[in-house]
């Protein structure tokens, strides 16, 4: 039986800082991009990852503001749906399938710096 925990409820979160993520841990994921939102207040990337059991899982990775990323060479076309991608970042403290991006590696090996140390 699966019991879904309503882990975090209350007000709708918006701009929110990095507190939901464990800055002491780094996780690496390889997967296929299913969505890329280059909008405020935080850029959000959804990636389909195959887990150890061969099952597909959706992970939500977020980065800094698109404004900050624009000043670091990103734009809304830099990542596309279907791209094979590697994400490195801090996982959610609550064990959810979330990541605060610290580095993105594109299929061609090009690395993107999300500059997410500040927000």
């Amino acid at each position, binding site marked *: 039986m699966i019991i879904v925990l309503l882990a975090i409820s209350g007000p709708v979160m*918006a701009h929110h800082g990095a507190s*939901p993520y464990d800055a002491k841990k780094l996780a690496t994921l390889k997967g296929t991009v299913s969505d890329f939102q280059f*909008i405020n207040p935080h850029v959000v990337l959804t990636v389909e990852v195959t887990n150890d059991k061969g099952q597909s899982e959706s992970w939500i990775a977020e980065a*800094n503001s698109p404004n900050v990323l624009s000043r670091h060479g990103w734009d809304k076309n830099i990542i596309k749906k279907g791209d094979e991608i590697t994400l490195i970042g801090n996982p959610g403290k609550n064990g959810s399938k979330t990541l605060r991006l610290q580095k993105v590696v594109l299929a061609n090996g090009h690395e993107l710096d999300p500059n997410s140390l500040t927000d």
Partner: protein
Amino acid sequence: MRNRWVVQALGVVAILILSSTISARSQAQQDTTPTAPAASSTPDLSGIWSRLRDGAMARGYENYVLDFGKNDSPMTPPAAAIFKVTNSKYHGDDPKTVLSDPIFQCFPPGVPRIYLYNFPMQIVQIPGQVLMLFEYDHYIRRIYTDGRPHDMEQGPLWMGDSIGKWEGDTLVVDTVNFNDKTLLDRVGRPHSTALHVVERMRRIDHNSMEIAFTIDDPKSYTKPWGTKLIFDQKPDWKIMEQVCEDNSSFLGFNKKATQAPAKK
């Protein structure tokens, strides 16, 4: 008849003197209007500025992200009692309580907390006003430099009421009339409605600006305290749209994908 000529002559002289006076006065006005002191001698702080983080410490400034509290003052007992709650609530490890910080619900950040955010601002100088146009959620600070007093008939206000005056090359900005709904920083330092912020803004070289500010809130702190920030001019940048609320439904800390793993 003779008297009439004398009267007419005196009238002509009077008109000449009067018109000469009017002309002189008009000339004086024309002379002063284009060279009013504010137009020619006001220092220029205009431009797009980004608070320097990288390398700030090397230049003798702090690289603030969370708070300005390195040289803060002891709190008064009421403020310390508030801080005991806000610090554990907003600066702890529990995302649920940390995210309840009003700033993360898109309430205005107040002053000087708005400087903690990693977004540039543009200074625009127009007669009688200095405008600070913040990228962060489109906030505008309107600093009146025309000599008017504080507007204490409004508020209390989230961003306070600001008036300014030039002291040499420095714009001295005086801000009062704050509400007490904001915190000074992400660590949770509180303030009261007695908060009085004085900022001294000046170029330290062509591409850099310093803002030194003092926080004076006798209801919350036993003495005034503050620090200095450094900003770099960014002539190639533009102020972009930045909206606190937008993709919150995608971030969705209420959504299934971001919930803790299910228990079996």
